[in-house]
């Protein structure tokens, strides 16, 4: 039995000074796992949306085709992808140690994110003004919560970017700051991907 193999003369029992895993790879894996759980969260929200996207669940209120505007949604999509591009160009600048380039990239990303949120909150305010608030029908509840959950992700992303701006200035490009900036890039792409799903699923199919 292989389990019974006798130890050879060189059988090594200890590994002094074993370096272990790299902290960056652990953090990156951990962050991917977090995004997996976050993706599951959106999956459940999309499932709820699919269940409630019927005329019956609209309960006499507006249905998808009456509230979504795929043209405006298209411009929102362009803006959010622009924000991701701006951040990514910033990290390209980081690669060459170009601090100002990164700061400008992040500022651009924040600005475009605020433009996006402005569009989104404008839409929601218009809906509320027309009596199509979250409490109007089961369908509208699903619509509002899906849009707002994505918006909350963006708000936390913006907050994170502001913190990172302070850290770049105060701490420079140390190992942890760079690791956080790279995770933030993944997060920012993740929330944009979620938006693309929202656009396809809610705006394009709904229209």
């Amino acid at each position, binding site marked *: 039995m292989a*389990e*019974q*193999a*006798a*130890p050879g003369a060189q*059988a*090594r*029992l*200890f*590994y*002094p*000074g*074993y370096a*272990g*895993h790299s902290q960056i*790879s*652990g953090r990156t*894996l*951990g962050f991917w*796992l*977090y995004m*997996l*759980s*976050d993706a*599951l*969260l959106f*999956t*459940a*929200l999309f*499932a*709820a949306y699919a*269940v*409630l996207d019927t005329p*019956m*669940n*609209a*309960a006499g*209120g507006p249905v998808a085709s009456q509230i979504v505007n795929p043209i405006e949604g298209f411009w929102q999509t362009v803006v959010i992808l622009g924000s991701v591009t701006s951040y990514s160009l910033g990290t390209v600048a980081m690669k060459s140690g170009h601090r100002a380039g990164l700061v400008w990239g992040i500022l651009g990303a924040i600005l475009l994110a605020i433009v996006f949120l402005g569009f989104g909150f404008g839409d929601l305010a218009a809906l509320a003004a027309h009596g199509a*608030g*979250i*409490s*109007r*029908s*089961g*369908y*509208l*509840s*699903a619509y*509002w*919560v899906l849009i707002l959950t994505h918006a909350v992700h963006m708000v936390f992303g913006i*907050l994170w970017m502001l*913190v990172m701006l302070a*850290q770049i200035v*105060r*701490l420079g490009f*140390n190992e*942890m700051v760079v690791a*956080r900036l790279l995770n933030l890039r993944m997060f920012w792409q993740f929330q944009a991907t979620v938006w693309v799903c929202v656009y396809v699923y809610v705006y394009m199919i709904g229209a």
Partner: protein
Amino acid sequence: MQAQLPGPWSPLLGRLTLDQIPYQVPILQWTFAGVVVIGLAVVFCVLYFRKAGYLWREWLTTVDHKKIGVMYIVVGLVMLFRGFVDGLMMRTQQVLANGPNAPGIMGAQHGFLPPYHFDQVYSAHGTIMILFAATPILTGFQNIVVPLQIGARDMAFPYMNALSLWLTTAGAALVMLSLFVGDFSAAGWVGLIPLTELPFSPGTGVDYWMWAIQISSVGTTLNAINMITTIVEMRAPGMSWFRLPVFSWTTLSSNIIALTAFPVLGVALALLGADRYLGAHFFTAGNGGNLMLYTNLFWIWGHPEVYFLILPVFGILSEVVPTFSEKPLFGYVTMVAATFAIAGISWLVWLHHFFTMGAGPDINGFFSVATMLVGIPTGVKVFNWAFTLYRGRIHFSVPMLWALFGLFLLLAGGLTGMMLALPAINYTVHDSVFLVAHFHCMVLLVVAAAFAGVTYWFPKLFGFKLDEGWGKAFFWVFTLGTVITFAAMFALGFEGETRRLDWTFDPAWKPMLIVEEFGIMLYVVSIVCFVIMLAVSIRDRAKTRLAQPWPTARTLEWLTHTPVPFYNFAVTPQVNMRDELAWRREHGLDQAKPDRYEAIHMPSNSALPVIIGALAGVWGFAMIWRIWWLAGLSLAGIIVCVIIRSFDKNEGYYLQPEEIEAMETNLAIGAIIAEQPDRSHSSIPAEAH
């Protein structure tokens, strides 16, 4: 946009008013008195023995996975006791309130609990036992054992590990608080919809239930990320995947389940929250809500959750059975495959919780077959354990007794589960106590494995064994209580008793209800045995100190000193075989010492996790009572804490080789290292490496 509230609300205190404190209920008066007395006794002891500083430095702010694991288990055991008292009240109520002429006291028409109070008791029992007892206890074992088993010094994210613990504790504290401020949910641990909606549950009970689960499940999700990363990234050199001990394998699979399932629970509860707080219509009976959406979302989490609990239990059995059979585990590879098969199938069976929804024969057929499929990998496991026992040199130590009893419970619970998997049978016994008895066999398997784990790993942490005699007394009384209570409950299910009855109207149930009450009294006796076992073991600790408590243990955690020092391994071991320790022992290498030591990097303690946990508890309380300013403030506090942490340059400290050598020499002659060296002034700056 706040939903229309029944009752008063003020900006300063939200829904909180003085008459929300149920000081006129006699049961709660006594409970409150008990909590105050025990609480004061604990505080007095800590102050009298001058241990406040020690408690803060070594426990509350610790990031050591072993201490965090111990605290998880302590929280779990306290909540297990609370959940048990709920069970005791239910059993006693049902036996007292039997038949149309049953007398009533303390405001109840029958028995001693009015219906609304009884409903809270069973809701709390289920919620507590699943989420605040079983989950923390098993998480605790995973925390303690997995890093040791894989030859690591700590978890991948020690700070986040502490955060997970304190979030879980905050949730548990909210559940306990609901005893004395307001009330708890009366809508079942599953949150029966639309009963949990605001018009039907206008109080704060459902909010307590919802936010307590929500906060603790954030902790569970973070812990899952931590566990998976630890197992994937931090195995010792030579620890290839197929040398990984089975408990670590089951931890991995169970945490993959947690990571993917808990977000769905979070969504289900958040949407319910939108209904209750913002007046949304996800699950309302009118206005375009969909009741079954909630039930589906809940059980899409709920069934994987069951396997999230049971898989680590299988892991504990797979550690205990080989150790006390003096044989390697039979069929290691099939055991691993079966573990992942169960984890995979766990996603495909949720609908069997509501076969009677009326989904039609095709859907019921699919979920019935999927459910029965679970029996195949589970059967593989049972046969593997049986073949491990076969011709082994079996020691009937306390952990082994628990493990063997666990196998019987698995058989009883598994076979009745197969019966319930058939929709035709399911329609007959749906929501009867037959079902309740079935799943109690499964969750008591969790408890049995938990006590196997407690007795098995206790000496690893504390250096002395738990008393064998009292441990056996505890085991036998507990076992007898289990068999008597749940055999009677199966019978009552066949006699047609449905679950959640505050008044057992049929006098024909009386004999079996009395048998159940007798069984639950045996549990009371078993708790006394448990406490005596702890007291006797602590009293006699000097006599039972052993360098190797279980001389037949096989896995890497037993290679460390007993009790295990805070740095785990003085030198990272090189793994050569599956069951490394058994292999070393066989070849006379188990006493081998490393020839040199190198500096060890250790993480520093942090007060932030316990502060964030406390803030999360305050936030939950504020959300429950709708005190918006306090909710906003505590949430802002949490965010500020997280940001402070991200600016923290303290990256731990190094233990120098001379220090390690000195400690190792002391350990070898039986000393105990209780505290870490004080390094508060000499942490390494971030730029140093």
